[in-house]
């Protein structure tokens, strides 16, 4: 079933002024429950604008958006728009700059607190969220301003996870982190996805990360959806992606070159693991062929 569905959704900024800007135009899309979706697109293609519709932060200037089957801006649901924000958690870019409480615990508890949960329930959720992002118990009573950059970011992500959203959207969660930090956070998100069966949308500029973690890819281009399909099928359109200022993972480019040089290699290679397997296969094939 589709957890998020849009029908001809458009968003125009500063409508009716000389600065009018169509940021999202006529997008119809269905995102299945439990998917891990990578969202890519050049700067200004409308990624951030689109995802802010999914949790009701922005209201479409035309078109509809359904979350869990309900039109969130329909008259009868309008006043419950805050509930949509609890169902669809959104982690902004550089979320560590939004921390404000005295302790890590209180900060993570802000979202659950706004949901009106009991103290006990809040406590379990905070501990659970801290565990998901790999923060040790001892940090709970520390001031978030005393932590390192990477730890602050994990506190911020935990603050959204603690709302137990059905859909978790992350806007470039690894910007500015070192390679190890990147892998760690993305690994934790993957684990969260697998354990909770929730839907994940990951906005990223790294094709390598998308290939490694996502199952499907949503490609935005000039305010519209260029493609929404499996990783294999999206990255097989590498020429078109390159033309719109995107790219494919480095190994994919190598394999493309190989095939354009006349070798018959698979074109479904996006990660180092896949590349390794494919080369080994071809290599053994060649050797066996040689012996035969």
């Amino acid at each position, binding site marked *: 079933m589709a957890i998020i569905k849009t029908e001809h959704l458009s968003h125009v*900024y500063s409508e009716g002024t000389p600065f009018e800007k169509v940021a999202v135009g006529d997008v119809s899309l269905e995102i299945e429950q439990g998917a891990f979706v990578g969202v890519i697109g050049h700067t200004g293609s409308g990624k951030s604008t689109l995802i802010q519709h999914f949790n009701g*932060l922005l209201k479409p200037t035309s078109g509809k958006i359904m979350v869990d089957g309900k039109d969130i801006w329909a008259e009868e649901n309008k006043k419950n728009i805050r509930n949509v*924000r609890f169902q669809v958690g959104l982690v902004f870019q550089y979320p560590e700059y*939004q*921390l404000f409480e005295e302790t890590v615990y209180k900060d993570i508890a*802000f*979202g659950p607190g706004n*949901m009106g949960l009991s103290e006990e329930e809040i406590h379990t959720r905070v501990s659970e969220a801290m565990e998901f992002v790999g923060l040790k118990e001892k940090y709970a009573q520390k001031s978030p*301003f005393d932590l390192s950059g990477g730890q602050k970011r994990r506190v911020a992500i935990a603050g959204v996870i603690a709302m137990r959203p059905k859909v978790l959207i992350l806007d470039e969660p690894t910007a500015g982190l070192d390679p190890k930090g990147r892998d760690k956070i993305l690994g934790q998100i993957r684990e969260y996805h697998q354990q909770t069966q929730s839907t994940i949308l990951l906005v990223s500029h790294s094709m390598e990360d998308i290939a490694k973690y996502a199952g499907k890819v949503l490609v935005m281009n000039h305010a519209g959806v260029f493609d929404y399909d499996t990783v294999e099928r999206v990255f097989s359109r590498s020429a078109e992606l390159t033309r719109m200022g995107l790219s494919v993972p480095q190994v994919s480019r190598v394999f493309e070159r190989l095939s354009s040089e006349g070798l018959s290699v698979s074109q479904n290679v996006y990660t180092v693991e896949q590349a390794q397997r494919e080369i080994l296969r071809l290599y053994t094939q060649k050797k066996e062929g040689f012996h035969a």
Partner: protein
Amino acid sequence: MLRDITIGQYFPGKSVIHRMDPRMKLILSLVYIVMLFCVGTEIGFLVPIVFLIVAIQISKIPMKMVLKGIKPILPLIIFTAVLNIFFVSGTPLVQWGFLTISLEGILVALKMVIRIIFLIMGTSLLTYTTSPIALTDAIEQLLKPLNKIKFPVHEMAMMMTIALRFIPTLIEETDKIMSAQKARGADMESGGLRQRIKAMIPILIPLFVSAFRRAEELALAMECRCYRGGEGRTRMRQLHYSRLDWYGAACMALCFAVVIVLNLFAPTLL
């Protein structure tokens, strides 16, 4: 949406008034205020009134926009004018129970209304025709002599520049912080005063923290670019008075002279 805000009310254009040196415009605005104070005869008020109306025509700023500045305090002005009409004693014109309307009352009210309206309109013409950056440049240049009495003119100018530079950045930042807190269920639109004040805290603290971080990085970047205060500093952009400015000054001087002559020789009703 916070991002759509335009800073100040500058209305770009190419008129003579737009092209004048901001320093001259600032000085002339001050002189205009003084002139309004100096008017001593009823007929004398015609001078600043005509002067401003002509100036607005030349600037090509729509009259409607110039009047906009008065709208919010219009009820107050009218109310005060009415009080003045009834409370100022003098030769009664109309008597209505214990309420009297006197000629003096009407004149005082009229004078007050004209003074307030033209004070506001006159100074808003300055802001409509001069960009915030030009205005701050002008202030810096005009205050320069105060350096001699140890007034920190350079620091003040630097603060104005940096503040102007960071206003759009901070608007965007606040917008982002608000969206992010709303995504965590913060409710900012409803509730009484108490609730609203409480809702400001999750925004203010991140805003402060980021402001301090920015300040630290900016200070570092400035030092890396050999910043060492105002001493020995030159400026790339230099302001120049042109013939236009002197014409403007001459017009103003002429008007002022007329006001003074009228003060001395024209009859007053009061």
